[in-house]
């Protein structure tokens, strides 16, 4: 009979508090993850929206190609009409 009471005491005073403490810790940890996940989701959505302008890079690419082509044509013309430094020095 005494062992029964000792077992009851251990159950109430040791096992139950430890179980509740551990479970409460798990629950708090799980609850703390939720806001972080929501924040990550909002950030990812904003990042995805920021990339909506990426297709404009194709326009930039085209314009850079045209600009470099113009510079090349201009440089070619200058190469023809301006003497080289070595020739000018002679």
């Amino acid at each position, binding site marked *: 009979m005494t062992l029964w009471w000792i077992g*009851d005491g251990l159950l109430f005073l040791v096992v139950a508090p430890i179980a509740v403490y551990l*479970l409460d810790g798990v629950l708090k940890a799980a609850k703390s*993850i939720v806001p972080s996940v*929501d924040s990550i989701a909002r950030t990812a959505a904003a990042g995805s929206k920021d990339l909506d302008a990426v297709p404009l*890079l194709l326009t930039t*690419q085209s314009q*850079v190609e045209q600009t470099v082509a113009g510079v*090349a044509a201009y440089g070619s013309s200058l190469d023809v009409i301006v003497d080289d430094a070595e020739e000018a020095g002679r």
Partner: protein
Amino acid sequence: MSAPAVTMLIAVVAIVLALVYYLVSVIVQLRKISAGLDNVIGSVGEIIEKSAPVNEVVNNINGQLDAGVDLLEGLLVKKAGLSDAMGLVDGLYPGAAAAGLRNFPDSKDVDPPRIGEVYTKGTLTLARLGREAPIAAASPNGPAIRNPAYATASARKLYPGGRPMEPEPLPRSPVIGTDSPVQYEQRDDIGKPRKRMPTES
């Protein structure tokens, strides 16, 4: 059933109830986390999809710009010579000559000449001709002559009272002939013998 057994049974039930409560709460939170991660995965998938061509496009742009830089550097050094080229670069961007030209490693060792000493004539010519040329703003003789903002004002100084329009029309030439509106006096000697000078006697 004895009292200790009943007490233990109550304790076990209480512990089981606590387990149920906490575990169900944890499950609810995990479901929220799972839903949030689904949103994250969707957005991350969009990011990956949208940013997929960026690398290729940016590399292409960089390649084009590299070609342009190579072209301009080569042309500058070819036409002006390495020393004067560095002087030009340093004149336009003070301190930039220290970095040197990308395709000319020796350019870092060049002592860039002062651009005002080398290209004085050309600089002044550019300052005179330059329309909104940056170099004209720093001209020692003041602003450029052909400054578009003041070109009309300079021309207006020639005509302080306003530039004259076309001159006033002159009177037309008189109409001549027998049917002219104005008949001029006729000479009396027409049709008569010619006058003769008096003879010496």
